[in-house]
Every structure is written in structure tokens, then in C-alpha cells.
């Protein structure tokens, strides 16, 4: 393992009195688990540890730079307004949330299960549709007890509030909210105690904590990962994800009880519309940085028209529409009069954009070389960042959290030091290959659909149609997407 470097975190506020670099000045508070980052992955891990009798004796601290209470979803949140940061939770993730007792705390009215997925090629129009009925063969029709839900659309703030509510109910975690990590250094070997393998965290509130196991749930630029000297490799896609909360002309083609997710692969990246409760929907449009800037600058009517065009018009038409300074709504209305589209296979039209929800973020692919170091484990985005086209990022983090909780549990049961590399081995081997496969598939899909012409278009269209007509294969893909 590469040597660990003392980390000077850049965000240390200069207004604070200067602290001693050495942690030996004061003896640190000893913790079994210190989790840096109170996002969905970190919260899920700690909730899992608190929910199990085996790990409930561990002394745990959570450090989060933001104010966790302030960022909660209000109890009386209006159902006509939704956050633009949503995720598609798989049944596997939901099952884990149920097992740790969190799911019952969720604001269910704000969660939208969907039962069907329509995916098609923007160049050739080859299409694949997913639902559990068509995924089964005629000989083995779906049993009434089997699930019909492919995944659940949920605002990230709903997920974190749900987990935080459950964690508060369980109690026993020292939650250090609005607290930043100033430094992480290795401890000292003194006469009585050898903390030379223990990460010592100096916090912005003046406390110093020693971590038997330091968990990096601290996002893509993870300071914990930097401290552990674990390299993270990858690249930028030169694409941005444009997000917005959309109001449609109706609840969707299948009504309120049969919601449909749509994704169309365009040469610049996929455009996806994922159902929210009522007439609302969530947009994720991956496109070039220039076009992302352009889309964000449009008036709500022009942007709405561009989204509708993104699901209907040809890539050539879209190229042209992006060059117009404004007036896309009129231009698209004129063009639509002159072309035939089968509206029944398309999402309902966008009629408005929720104010303040249009945003974009750069798309990256990153994967840490390993998820574990001596007394360090990485979960969620600290370990991997994925192209959002399959909506797997948050689910991977939930999978990490569940696996790490299991690993810690079995280490406690057999008296192992939960921070030792040996005890953490199981977590790394369980999650690394799984996440790597998912990162690879999503990356290859992105590359495959970036191609506009030539034999690849024919081949990928053939591939989609072939998969669509083969129930067992489709069932397999759906199982992977659902995480079952």
C-alpha cells in the first residue's frame, strides 16, 4: 500500500485559532467508527450498524460539514414541488432500507414507483421496453405475488431525511453536524498506547477523534481517500447532466398506477424522463457542456419545447435547434405540424419547468484502486463515480453501505479488529468487482450510443431489437437494473 500522507484539508478556516499539528498535545477521543460524510451512503452504513444488535456496542461518530437538520425534507413539503436531485432506487436498495428499519420513515407520498421502462435509439429508433410482464415468457406468466415495480423515484433529500430519522430513532451516534475536518494524521506511539496505525481527525470544533475504522463517505473528492493514499482513476466524459423538475400535460400514458420511465439515446448522450408523483417528472439530459449551457439559458417555454423535441425530433433537427438564440418553442411547433410521431410510445409533453430546478453538473467516471486501507474504508462516491445513464450511483452507494455493515458485523462476531485490513477484505472483494462491472457497462453504453452513423448504429439497433424479443435475456437485464 502506498504510504499515507498527512492531510491538510484546504477548507480549514483561517479565522480559527491555529491548532497544534501534532495530535499528541491532547489525547484524542477513541471511536470505533468515524464516518466522514452524511450523505445517503454514510447514513445508510451507520443506520445499518446501529440497527444490528451485534454492532450496536460500537462507539460511532458522524462528521458532516453541512447542517444536517437544515437540509431535511420538511414534513409538510408541498406535493407540487420536487427537488431536481432524484434517484431511481432499486428494489434491492429498498429491501436493505426495509431491513435496517428506515423505509417506514420515508415520505411515501413523494416516492414514485414505476412499472415500465422505454429505451430507444435516437438515430435508428430501435426500441426496447421493459416491464415484468413482458420479461416473463408466455409459459411462465408473472405470478400476482411477484413485483411489478422496476424501481422507485425518490428525491435524494427524502432518502437522507428517511435515514436520518431512523438513525435519530436508534440513537447512539455522535452526530457532529456543521463540522469540518481540519486535518487527518496518524496517531502517536506512546508508552501506554500505540495509535500509530489510527487516523486522528482534528475537527473545526476543536475536538480530536481517533478512529479504529475511518469511513470515507465524503464524496468524489474524498479527503479520506487522499489521506489513505488510495489513487482514484478515471476520466471526464466532456458531458454535463442537465436536470430539472418538469410538469407534464398529464400523469403519463399509463395513468397514475402504471408509470413509465423514458430514455432516448442521442449521439450527444441520453435524455431521460423519470416519473414523479402526479403530473411531475424528473429530467436528466446528458449533453455537451456547450449545449448544457445553452439549454440552461433558455426561457421555460423554449426549454420545455426542447425537451419535447429531444424525445421526438431527429438528431439533425436538434443540432439546428441548439444553434437558435431563442424561439425554439415556435420553431418546434411549426416542425411538429409537418411530421408524424406515434405519441403513444412517447412521454407526455412538458408544459412547464419548476422554477429554480434547472441545473447541470459535469459527468465523470472515477474508480478508486481499492476500497480499503489500514483502518480506512470508502463507500459511495468516494469509491466510485458513475455515468448516471442507468441511475445506479446512489444504489451502488447503498450496496456498499450494506456490504460494509455486514463485513463489520462478522468481524465483531469473531473478535476481529474492525479496522484491520484483514477484517475489511471481505468488503473490498464483495463490492469491487460488482461496481467495476457496473461502471464498465454504463461506460460502454455511453460510448456505443455516441456514434451517429455507420455499421455500429445498425448493430446496436439489432442488439436492442434482439434483446427486446428475447424474454429471458430481458429478464436478466431487468434483474440487474433492479438489483435482484
Amino acid at each position, binding site marked *: 500500500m502506498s504510504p499515507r500522507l498527512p492531510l491538510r484539508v484546504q477548507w480549514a478556516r483561517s479565522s480559527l485559532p491555529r491548532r497544534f499539528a501534532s495530535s499528541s498535545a491532547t489525547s484524542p477521543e*477513541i471511536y470505533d467508527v468515524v464516518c466522514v460524510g452524511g450523505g445517503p451512503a454514510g447514513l445508510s452504513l451507520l443506520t445499518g450498524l446501529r440497527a444490528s444488535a451485534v454492532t450496536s*456496542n460500537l462507539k460511532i461518530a458522524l462528521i458532516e460539514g453541512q447542517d444536517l437538520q437544515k437540509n431535511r425534507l420538511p414534513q409538510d413539503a408541498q406535493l407540487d414541488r420536487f427537488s431536481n436531485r432524484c434517484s431511481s432506487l432499486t428494489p434491492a436498495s429498498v429491501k436493505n432500507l426495509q431491513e435496517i428499519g428506515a423505509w417506514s420513515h420515508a415520505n411515501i407520498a413523494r416516492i414514485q414507483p414505476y412499472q415500465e421502462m422505454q429505451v430507444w435509439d435516437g438515430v435508428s429508433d430501435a426500441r426496447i421496453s421493459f416491464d415484468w410482464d413482458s420479461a416473463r415468457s408466455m409459459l411462465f406468466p408473472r405470478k400476482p405475488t411477484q413485483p411489478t415495480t422496476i424501481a422507485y423515484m425518490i428525491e435524494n433529500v427524502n432518502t437522507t431525511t428517511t435515514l436520518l430519522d431512523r438513525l435519530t430513532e436508534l440513537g447512539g451516534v455522535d452526530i457532529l453536524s456543521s463540522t469540518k475536518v481540519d486535518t487527518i494524521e496518524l496517531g502517536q*506511539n506512546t508508552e*501506554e*498506547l*500505540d*495509535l*500509530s*496505525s*489510527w487516523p486522528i481527525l482534528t475537527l473545526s470544533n476543536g475536538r480530536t477523534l481517533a478512529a*479504529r475504522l475511518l469511513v470515507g463517505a465524503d464524496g468524489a473528492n474524498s479527503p479520506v481517500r487522499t489521506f489513505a493514499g488510495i489513487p482514484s482513476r478515471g476520466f471526464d466524459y466532456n458531458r454535463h447532466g442537465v436536470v430539472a423538475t418538469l410538469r407534464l400535460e398529464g400523469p403519463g400514458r399509463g395513468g397514475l398506477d402504471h408509470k413509465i420511465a423514458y430514455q432516448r439515446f442521442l449521439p450527444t448522450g441520453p435524455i431521460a424522463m423519470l416519473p414523479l408523483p402526479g403530473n411531475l417528472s424528473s429530467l436528466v439530459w446528458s449533453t455537451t457542456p456547450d449545449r448544457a449551457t445553452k439549454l440552461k439559458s433558455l426561457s421555460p417555454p423554449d426549454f420545455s419545447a426542447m425537451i419535447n423535441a429531444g424525445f421526438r425530433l431527429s438528431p439533425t433537427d436538434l443540432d439546428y435547434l441548439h444553434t437558435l438564440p431563442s424561439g425554439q418553442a415556435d420553431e418546434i411547433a411549426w416542425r411538429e405540424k409537418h411530421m408524424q410521431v406515434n405519441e403513444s410510445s412517447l412521454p407526455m409533453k412538458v408544459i412547464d419547468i419548476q422554477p429554480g430546478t434547472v441545473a447541470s453538473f459535469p459527468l465523470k467516471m472515477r474508480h478508486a484502486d481499492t476500497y480499503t486501507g489500514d483502518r480506512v474504508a470508502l463507500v459511495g462516491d468516494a469509491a466510485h463515480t458513475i455515468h448516471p445513464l442507468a441511475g445506479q450511483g446512489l444504489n451502488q452507494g447503498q450496496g456498499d453501505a450494506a456490504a460494509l455493515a455486514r463485513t463489520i458485523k*462478522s468481524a*465483531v*462476531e*469473531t*473478535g*476481529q*479488529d474492525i479496522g*484491520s*485490513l*484483514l477484517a475489511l*477484505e471481505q468488503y473490498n472483494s464483495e463490492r469491487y468487482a460488482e461496481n467495476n462491472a457496473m461502471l464498465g457497462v454504463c461506460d460502454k453504453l455511453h460510448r456505443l450510443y455516441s456514434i451517429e452513423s455507420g455499421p455500429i448504429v445498425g448493430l446496436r439497433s439489432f442488439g436492442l431489437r434482439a434483446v427486446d424479443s428475447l424474454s429471458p435475456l430481458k429478464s436478466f437485464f431487468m434483474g440487474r437494473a433492479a438489483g435482484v
Partner: protein
Amino acid sequence: MASRSSSRAVHAFNRAFEQTSQRPLSKRQETASITALTIRCSSTASQSSAHSQSSVDPSEVSHFNNLAESWWDPHGPSRLLHLMNPLRHTFISRCLSTPFRSPLPQKLQYLDVGCGGGIFAESAARLPSTKSVTAIDPTPEVLKIAEAHRKRDPTLLQPGRLTYLNKSIEELSIPGAEKAKYDVVSLFEVLEHVSTPSSFLEQLMQHVKPGGWLVLSTIARTWTSWMVTNVMAEDVFGIVPKGTHEWSKYVNEEELREWFVKKGWGSDGGMKVMGVVYVPGMGWKEVPGGEGWGNYFFGVRKSA
């Protein structure tokens, strides 16, 4: 045969690293044994340093550091033992979960004989169900490793939680009262190195509380050779017809069982066995019947 060669490999590791010194060694033997340990554990350390008796000799300190590092290095030469350690707890739990009329207390007292660098002793001391662990090893060098590593975990420094004693089992005084004895006496990867297993086991048995368990792990083949040369002649002689040499090559866990029955131990289901095998890439796996030919765990209860 793959299983046999892996067993052999394990045995080599065991002999070299976990317990070098459980037999009542003479001074000369002990030095030889430590030297062997030095050579295997640390190619960089000077061999002669092992003979040095001065605790401040810099070369001995460096040798000790090298040894300590490799003992606890998860990818070092003790890796197979580290990987086996969770199974020891699995097996002990299985023994302890057998229902008996007189149950053991909620918090258990352990005696780990031949603790080496403390792989098992540390893990036993961390369990919430543990009251105390006394771990003994007659080799001062390995106990230094154990003591140094214990300092890395504040939990283990709680008073009475884990006590290392630089003693052989013969030197450990036998408590007068039965109640003051141990709930679990463990002997992992030691028996195959003991020159007179029967008298050695008899020593251990005196430290087990009525209703408590003596738990050990060893390897069938090695046990075989010791049995054949020692116990067979002394103890099993009456059970095994004299002259069955072909059969005696494969003396295994059965002989252990019969020996304990003869001692009046392990009646009413108070005897457990678990065969294990190391599968590269998968770790240690339980194999029913594996006790007949490979590594195995053996647990026997002292009647209450």
C-alpha cells in the same frame, strides 16, 4: 493431492509461526526453535540476534520489529492463520451453544495456551461475551510481539481483559477451587508440536472448569505421527490391537476422542469436531469429515 499439499503448507506455517514453543522445552531446544522462527519470519534480521539476551541490543530491536510486522501482516507468512482465526470462534460458539443442564456464566474466562503473537487471544478478548483472557507462551520473543500489538487496541488494555504470561502450562499454577478455573481452554495449532501429547493434555485439563470446554485445532496427519510414537504406546494401547501398523498410519481425531472418553470427558454430547480445508481464493471452508485427513477442530467438555 491438492488437499494434502495445502494441509502440509498450513502445517509448515503453523509450526513456524504460531506456536513454536508449547512443548516443555529445554533451554537448548528453545534457542533452536527461536532461531528457526527468525529464519522463517524475517530474512532481513540477523540470525545471531535471536541468541542475544539483551533487550536493548539495537539489532535485537530491529529483529523484533521485523518479526512483529510479519506476524501481524495480513499478507505476510501468517496469513493462513489469520484467515483461520474466525473459524476458531465459529467452532467455539458451536461447542458453547450445545445445551447442558448446568450452563456456563454469561461472561466467559479463557485460557489460551501457546498464544504466540496473540492472534486468537486478542480476538477472544474483544468479544462482548468475554470476561477475561489469560494467554500464555513460554517464548519471551513472541510475547513481546503480542504485548506490542495489544497496545494498538485500547479495548484490549482495559484492566483484566487480556493478560499475557510468559509461562509454560507446567508453570501455570492450578487454581484450588473449581470455580476459579477457565470456561474455555484453547490450544490452537500446538498439539502437533508437543512431544508428549497425553501428559500435556492432562496438564491442560486441570485448568478447565467443570462444564467448561477444552478446544483445540490440529492436523490429522501430524497428530497421527505423534500419536503413533507417543500416545499409542502409552494410552491407546489397550484400545488398539497391537500390531495394526497399517491402520496406525491413519490415526486421527477418533483416537483423540477415544482417549478423552477413557478420561471420562465429553459424555452426553460434550464432544465436537469440525474438519476444515483451505481453498485458495476462497479461504478456509468447513468440510464434513475433513477431520479424517486434514486440519480439524476438536472440542471436549469437562462434565459438570
